[in-house]
């Protein structure tokens, strides 16, 4: 099975990102990291590839030239990466991103596409669904468990009050929750990642232009909640909690 996995390189979430003054786009540092939620997608892809003697190819749109996050995913065991690296794609919205990634996958070929449910930096949470429409495949979303069958895939899909079992023939697209524990890269994996093939494409190679569908007009600070009383537990902090519960009239 030829498995395509969407991965995103993002600013380190430990340091809040900043926006540029002109377009209000996220300022992307040189040393972006692999979005943690993508590790589960890579893990699922590796398990399915192992079960079906398949291959795992990473796809990422990353206009900043950094490769650190891609290498992290290659070190987990992915076979190759396709990076769409083009300054013309700066500020691309979810639909343009979906068009770019889908076009690259159509060009390279795929049986199954795997993505996270949403990125940690932009979290629009609709890009994979857009890809599924462009690729004309079913979207098996919010999977907490994935199994490959003979020419088909089965997932457990999270619902608001439980889960559904959903089955589809391939080709298909699956979005996975972060519940699937990813493996750690081995030393050997980290060394091998340095020599794995990374194909770089531009939007022109794919025949996609960065169409603007929406514009950010303003970004303003929100009046934040302020911290109230902070106490160190001296063995009687629970009494203060009860006082606050009484003030709120819930006890």
């Amino acid at each position, binding site marked *: 099975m030829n498995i395509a996995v969407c991965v995103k390189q993002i600013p380190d979430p430990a340091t809040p990102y900043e926006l540029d003054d002109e377009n209000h786009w996220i300022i992307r540092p040189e040393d972006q990291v692999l979005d943690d939620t993508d590790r589960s997608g890579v893990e699922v892809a590796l398990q399915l590839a192992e079960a079906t003697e398949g291959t795992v190819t990473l796809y990422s749109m990353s206009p900043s030239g950094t490769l650190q996050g891609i290498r992290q995913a290659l070190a987990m065991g992915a076979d190759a990466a396709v990076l769409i690296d083009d300054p013309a794609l700066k500020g691309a919205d*979810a639909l343009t991103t979906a068009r770019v990634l889908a076009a690259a996958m159509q060009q390279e070929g795929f049986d199954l596409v795997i993505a996270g449910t949403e990125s940690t930096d932009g979290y629009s949470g609709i890009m994979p669904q857009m890809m599924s429409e462009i690729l004309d495949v079913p979207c098996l979303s919010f999977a907490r468990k994935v199994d490959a069958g003979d020419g088909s895939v089965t997932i457990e899909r999270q619902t608001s009050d*439980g889960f559904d*079992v*959903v089955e589809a023939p391939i080709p298909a697209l699956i979005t996975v929750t972060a519940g699937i524990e990813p493996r750690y890269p081995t030393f050997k994996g980290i060394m091998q990642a340095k020599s794995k093939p990374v194909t770089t494409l531009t939007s022109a190679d794919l025949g996609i232009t960065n169409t603007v569908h929406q*514009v950010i007009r303003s970004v303003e*600070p929100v009046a*934040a909640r302020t911290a109230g009383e902070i*106490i160190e537990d001296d063995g009687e902090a629970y009494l203060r*909690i009860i006082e606050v519960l009484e003030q709120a009239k*819930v006890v």
Partner: protein
Amino acid sequence: MSIWVFSEETNGLPSGGSLELITKARTLGEVAVFYLGAGSDAAWATLGDHGAGSVHHLDTGDVLPSGPAAAAMAELVSDATAVFFGMGNTDRDVAGRLAARLGRAAVSNGLDVSMDGTVTVASEILGGTLEVITEVTAESPAIVVMRPKAFAAEPNGGAAPVVYAVPLVDVGRAGAATVTERHVEESEGPALGEANVIVSGGRGLGSADKFAMMDELAGLLGAAVGGTRAVVDAGWVPYSYQVGQTGKTVKPSVYIACGISGAMQHVVGMKGSSTIIAINKDPDAPIFALSDLGVVGDVHKVVPQLIDALKARA
């Protein structure tokens, strides 16, 4: 102006989130609803009572709905100014497919929307510290995905809507997924979205069995139990417990965060609570920055003391 609202059936009635969106939409124009589910007279009455003028009803049965629903909606909404979706999983699936099918903008995480010549959407980023105003510049309809509880659902005594049946057409590969089993994971006590008090646990609890302590505290307070994405992902509690960006948005009178650090994706789901009490052993935990009462201490000591004291009062 015509505005469409997507509504997925939940326990036999329109989802609560869709009623919030219909309430907002009726202040902006004529409201048409795309309803996904079995449907019933009670469902139509509820939609009408919130301001829906017409309902277009599709039942996909055991076919995973996003492919056929997006294809059907694309035919219906071409003259609309905007199409509203909630943040539910199926909402997001249909919204994304519809936007791609129509080649239109889709703005996610909306907290407010206005239609004064153009469609603009307010949202928040970085854990709700910055407000972003996005203007849709593409042709209509604008597709807007709104966060739960952005608006309050309020009936306006509207008449029963006109209901049109939407046929389930074969959309080929995009409709090739089938739901083969449905499982409901029961939880006790009040529903998370409606609870007046919420007791919520994070990684700091240490292990799944410590949620027994959350259940006990919740029982004494008549509270619902919630959790962070981390504990849901770890399998300690079901997804229905999740509070935050990808889970539920809650606004109770009191939110008690136990062993929760306060990651941005959690905070966006609970920062609207009236009173926030946090217990965490790390004095630098971000949750303390928005707590009315922050206790720097061990949840495994403070919570049992609290439980004993509440029992003694009962």
